[in-house]
Structures are given as C-alpha cells and as structure tokens.
C-alpha cells in the first residue's frame, strides 16, 4: 500500500512518519510514535479519551486522518509535564485532589483542560465554564466534581500573584457572585 510522509511537531520535537493515507492520527500516535497515553474509548468522537491538541485546539484524534496533521503542532498527555518531567500544576492538581480514578479518561481530560487554561489565561474559569469545556470528555468514575475542582485549582495556581490577591478582595468576590446570580437568573427565566 502506498504511504504518505507526514511531518509534525509532537510535544516539542519534529517527527516524520510514513503512514497509510487514511490511518487515524490516534493510531499513528500510539503505534508509529509509541505514545500510548492517548486512549481509544469509542472510535467515533464521543468519549474524548483520544483528545490531543492540534495547533492549540483540542480535537478527537480518532476522527482525524494523520495526513491532516501534516505541518501541525501536536500536544499529547505526554507533553503536558514541565521541562525535566515535573508534573504541571494541572497534573499535580489531578493527583492531589482526586481528579484521576481509573485514569483512562484522564489524558483526554487533561488535554481539554489544558486548552481551557490556555484560553482563559490570567483568569479562573467558573464551574459551569469548566463543565462546558470538558463536556466532550466522558468520565465514568469521578462524577466530574473532583475534575472540575482540580482544573479550577490549577487555574488559580497559574494566575499571577497580583491577580490572585485582587480576586481575594471582597469587591472582586462580590462581582463574581453577582455575575453568578445574574447568570442563574437568566437561566431560570
């Protein structure tokens, strides 16, 4: 079978692979690149266990032919740790706060959460915002509570100290609360 050369940046390193034209990115990552952290749960883009970042955006790698990733920058769960291998704030929060139970959905969830954190830099996403951002990643163990808590804790950690202090100020809290109340009221209507 004819194979196509595909080049991408994977977790910071350039990779070149020769793949069958329709081979899924998921399989290329797991088989050709030997990165098995990215999981398959359904093969049809419903469970999100195969989520990776493609040019900074979370995507289901089971739905994407690897040839589409040509020239892209990819990040998988293996690329989330800090340089030197220390856990990132996000990973650490999952470990200490019970965000990972069986762990099979964890890589995909971490990648989706990473996208959210990148998007909401300098700000702690609200509970509902985290739940919405992770709605494409199924978890059957945790009931999501500890995952949401861990993502928000990591966001808090990542905030600059000044912003954290401002957030702690009563005024800021009142604003946040007012926002929540207004949102609830909107939803109730």
């Amino acid at each position, binding site marked *: 079978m004819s194979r196509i050369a595909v080049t991408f940046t994977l977790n910071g390193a350039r990779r070149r692979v020769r793949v069958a034209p329709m081979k899924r990115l998921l399989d290329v990552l797991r088989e050709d690149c030997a990165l098995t952290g990215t999981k398959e749960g359904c093969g049809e883009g419903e469970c999100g266990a195969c989520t990776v970042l493609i040019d900074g955006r979370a995507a289901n790698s089971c739905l994407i032919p690897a040839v589409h990733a040509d020239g892209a920058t990819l990040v998988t769960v293996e690329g989330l740790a800090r340089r030197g291998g220390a856990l990132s704030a996000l990973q650490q929060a999952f470990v200490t706060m019970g965000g*990972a139970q*069986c762990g099979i959905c964890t890589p995909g969830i971490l990648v989706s959460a990473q996208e959210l954190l990148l998007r909401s830099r300098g700000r702690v996403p609200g509970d509902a915002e985290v739940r*919405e951002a992770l709605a494409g990643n199924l978890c059957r163990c945790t009931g999501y509570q500890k995952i949401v808590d861990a993502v928000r804790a990591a966001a808090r950690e990542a905030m600059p100290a000044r912003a954290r202090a401002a957030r702690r100020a009563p005024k800021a809290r009142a604003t946040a609360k007012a926002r929540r109340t207004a949102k609830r009221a909107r939803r109730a209507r």
Partner: protein
Amino acid sequence: MPSSRTLKPAPVSVGVSIPKLEAGEKVTGRARYVDDIAVPGVLHGRTVRSTVARGRIIRVELDPAFDWRGVVIADHKDIPGENVVALIADDQPLLAADEIRHAEEPILLVAHEDAERAEAARMAVRVEVEPLPAALTVEDALARTALVHGDDNVFKEITIERGDVERGLAESDLVVEGEYRTGWQEQLYIENNGMIAERDGDGLLVRGSLQCPYYVHKALMRIFALAPDRVRVIQTVTGGGFGGKEEYPSMIGGHAALLAWKSGRPVKIVYDRLEDIAATTKRHPSVTRMRVGVMKNGRLVAVDADILMDGGAYVTLSPVVLSRGAIHAAGAYRWRDARIHARAVATHTPPNGAFRGFGAPQTLFATECHLDRIAERLGMDPLALRLANAVRIGDVTPTGQVLKESVGAVDVLTRTAAMADWTRTRERLTRENAAAAAHETRRHRRRAAAPRPGSAPAPSARRLRRGIGLSLALHGAGFTGSGEVRLASRAAISLGADGRPVILTANTEIGQGTITAFSQLVGEALGVPPSFVIVHDPDTRAVPDSGPTVASRTVMVVGGLLEQCARAMRERLELFAETPIAGADEFRRVAKRFLRERGPLKIERQYEKPPGITWDDDTYRGDAYSVFSYAGCAVEVEVDLDTGETTVLNVATAHDIGRAIHPVLAAGQVEGGTVQALGWALLEDVRWKDGRVWNHQLTNYIIPTSADTPPIHVEFVDDPYTYGPRGAKGVGELPMDTPAPAVVAAIAHATGVRADEIPVTPERLLAALAAREKS
C-alpha cells in the same frame, strides 16, 4: 510490649487524603493499560457471534474467496478441557457448539497479526443457524413461550419471611400498592474489555483488564484442564470496572488463551465499544411489586415485595444478584412483618451480570419510591415518614439480623436534610411552582385574548417546574450470607529485598483507590508512610486469593486482613530488634537485618467472621452481612413541561461508611456512584431489537457528561465499626442506591407526576404528563 506505640507516635495517614499513589502514572500517560502493552509477534483475536437470539448451528462456512493464509481459527472442538466458563453454575459455554441461547453468543474465534485482516476474517465467516422461537422478555419466559432454563425458566427463587404479612396488612390503617420497573444499564467503563494470552512454558499467562484475577484463573483451569500452578493471571492497569469486569474477563481470557494455545503465538483480544456494549453483561432489569401496610400516624407495619429480575440466557451471577436485591428490598426501615419473594428469570438475551450495587439499587428503587407514595397518601412529609421508621440500633431486619452497631440511618437522613435545607427548599419550590403555573395561566389568557400570529414563543415562555426529593438506603458490605466464610480470603505482607513491606492480595486497583487505601492501612500499622509500602501487582503466581474486588469488600474485609498482617509483622520485627520501630528508615534497617539473619518474612492472615454472626443459606435467616453502610440523598431537579427534559440542579448526600480511610477517595466513590445513578435514572436506556442491543454506541447510549452533572455535596457521618479496619465499612456500591428514587420523588414534587419506571426519559415523562392532563 504495650508501651511501644506510645514511645514514638506512628505517622498518621489513615483518615488523611494523601495524593493517590498511582495517579502520577495516570496523569502523565505512563500507565500501561492492556491495549498499550506491546507484545512482539502478537496476533489480534476477533470473535464471531450469533446474530440470532436462539437457534441451532447448522454449519460454519469459511468464505472460499477470502485469503485465509495466516489466520488462526478456533472453535469449541479446539478446547482441551471443558467447554465452560466456570462461575456459579457450569451452564455457559466458552464457544457455542450446537445450540445458540442468545444473540452475540460467541461461536468461533479468528486471529491474525494484522488487526484489519483479523476483522476481515471475522466478516468472512458465515454461520448458518436454524432460528428457533425465543423468550426475550421476563413475561414471555414466565409464560414459558420458550424454554431457556429447566422447566420453568427460573434460575433462582428466594423467599424471606418474618412475622405474618397478611395479618400485618389486615391490621394496618392503610395498604398501599405499587409496581416499579428499572431498566438495563451498561457499566460503560471508558476502557473496553481486553485480554492478552500467551503460552508460558507448559502453561498459560493471561494478562488484562479485570477485577478478579482468581475468577479468570479458575475458569482457565477448567477450559484447559491445567493444574493451578500452570495458569498465571495478572491484572494490567484497568480503566474502570463497576462490576463489568467481574465475570466477563473469564470469557475473553478464555478466548484469547484458546487462540494462543492453538497458534503458539501471543494473542490480544481488545473489544471495540460496539462489541463491548452489545456482548458484555449489563445491570439486571427488574420489576418489583410492593404492598405495604401503614398506620395513620406513619408507622410502617408490613411489607410484601415481589421481585423479578431478568438474568439473561445463562446463570452467571444472577442468583447472588437476586439475593442481594431481595435482602435489601425492605430498605433501611423497621417492619413488624415482612415477606420478600424474588425470582431471577432466564430469557434468550445476553446474560446480565454484576454492576455496582448488585441487585440492591433495583429493589431499593422500588422501596424508596413506594415510601414517597405512602407519604403522599398519608399527607406526610417524606422526610418525617422516613425518620419515624428508619432503623436504629437493636432493630431487626427481615432475615432476623439484629443491627448491633454503626447504624447511621437516622444520622445520614438528618445530615442530608440539613445540607439540602429540606423543609424550606421544599416549601419554596412548591410556592414557586404555583406562582409559575399562575403566571402561565394569565399569559395564556392574555395570548388567547390578543393572539399574535407567527410569533415564536420567547425563551421566557418555557414552562419550568422545580422539585426536590429525598431517599434513604442501606447497603451490606462484603459477600452476602455465608459468602465471606466460603471465600475464606487470604491476604499477606512480605518483606522485599530492599527492606520495604510488600502487600500481597488479589484485589485490584480499578480506580477506586485500592492501592492507596491498602498502603495507608498497612503503613499506619507498621509505623511507616504509605508511599514506603509496595503493593504487588495482582498476579496469581505471587499473591494469595484474597477474593474478588467486588461487593464493597476490598477495604473492609481485605483491608482488615492486611491490618492484622501488618500488626503481626510489626510485632515480629520489634521483638527481633528489641526496640519499637517508627519511620521508614528504622523499618528498613530492621527489616534488612531480619532478612539477613532470619531469612524471608511473610505474614498471611485468613478471613474469620466477626463473633456472633450466623447465617443459614437454606432458610435465608441470620446475619446477611456483618454490617450495613447507610446513605441519604436529596436531589433538586428542574423539569421542562414542554420537552419533558429533567435537569438535575443539585445533589446533597450524607454517607455512613463507618470511618473514611481516605476522605477524598471516598467522596470520589460517592460522587462517581451518584452520577452513574443519575444516568440510570434519567438517561441510560438500553434499547433492544430482536434480542440485540441496537443502541450499542456512545452516540446513542447516553451517559452523563460534565455539562449534565450538577455539583454534588458529600458529607460523611462518622460512626466507626468495631470489626472494620480503623472502623471502616464499605462505600463502593452504596452511592448507587439512593439517587434514582430521589430523582423520581423530585420530579413528582415538580410536576405531580410519579414515574414508576426508570429511566425517566423525556418521552416517558411527556407521556405521563399527557395521561394526567387527560384524566
């Protein structure tokens, strides 16, 4: 040496939420699940299954046009031992030989080194079957439209009696009747089932995603007629179980092993989602009819319950699922008279099996819904009715078990009510619903008076109602009846060459925290930090049979054995060192010296039932469990009267699990179990066509996402149990018991419509609302 513990305080870890010990591997992608393991020369196995529910195999034909080179094929004739998947009964074959009893029944196996060729080979097998009439429902099976099992299609029948039910009903002020139905539920672990098998010398090595290594071990010994020491089973990192990897891995392991045995090559069988949902076990659906006698003041007198569960085509675990269901059917209440009659029925559908709760959520659903119906009939607050009748210390269950200690029913109810602000919330929502209804009537009149044709209803025109419901449950920890005595579990701790303690059990980490909780219990008893303790992989060559990882038994039963082992080991080492040991460094030093001077050290303990426990399997009388855990749950919902959609807004739940060894992990169990139960109550609907699951995809079998899931507030009521390690009871299954009836009660509060069948899908709720409008 009574003074040894007081000299240096042991590091405290029990009761403290230390980081989950294996989580670092999981958040970095380093953890190796079965499908992540590279096996040189591996063949990919596929399973040819029946497409009909019942029939006789006439012929199996291999498509002559297909290139069969390199394809390994195995059927029942290749089985060296018995064609059986050994469990409770020996009725289920590994591969159908002649008779087909359910759709998706395995008939033939193929394997190839290329996964795509293996799949193509599977498609190139044609099985000619003479279809026979099938009994696909419990009703058909009981009417004996076709015979599945014996001459009455009943796998197991249980009767539990205490007092005189007929007299009790006659003497009651009011008798309330009801019928409740629950549907199938798929466990839906995110990691599909999978196993790898290979020849290992003159024996077999089977690794995979599983809960119970010794179940697979036992099954393989029979299939291959091998002695125990020639079969080795190892659990790989497992991506969720919930009961779904209790018995089915024996089937997949047997299939992979048969292909490996025949080909001499390693064989991997990993199901895709479609096959996993279609073929593997589900929660038993149930029908429960209740008759309850109650006095006007709300005192419950007599309960008469009749339970039916659909077991599917083979016995598998149905008798014990039924048993747990029957025992829990009286709920956490005091009755003078009780009669519980339960039957597990055989149908020509894929066997149902273990799923978190194991029969209890089904019967507790009926009991709790019925309690709400009774409260409504009496005009009583559902909380008050439950508080008045909840079991307390000294009360007696329908099997005659006296509840001696750690009975938290009243406490969890009170806590739950406080967390949910029950009385005020209920009154407020009632008021708001009335106001919303009045507002809609006015708007309707206005619109009728001055219609504006063509204008779409504004978003604010949604007709929403809110409600709150509450439930109470108990859950027996450990195997039912004499189960634990028969299991006679053994657990051990040995000293590793590096002087660290090594935990040896067959209990598996499937996400719930076995590794961490065991390390905490053992670490604390040994006076070392949990991270110093090594937990050996569940490997039947290395670990004793400490029983399956099921039935909320891991911490309470096996953790208890480990605590005994650790205490004995510490005493042994302290006697040897003639000094108390505290801390990892000291432990390591003493342990290494012990290994040098005295040789290896391994301490094993076997289960012994707590004093005063008796059980009679024949009469179903006695202590069904050594102890029960308790939970209360309040659920607030919002119902859209026009779409029938129910949104869960809030969950508050209090649990009495004795004492939490690791509060964060325990809360994780509660939150996860709660959301599975919310899915069971509202979303998860297994649909059938001709005996096959047609919605066997994640696009059409819907489980809760983070966006569907409300915040869940969990509290633990501390009520230590004398015979649990550090006071612990079971937690794993309990949270599955309470949310569904609380959801139904909340919907009833919101809409006035009582759904007696779950899942309460929008279609079902709209039909009920329409029926009410009509009447």
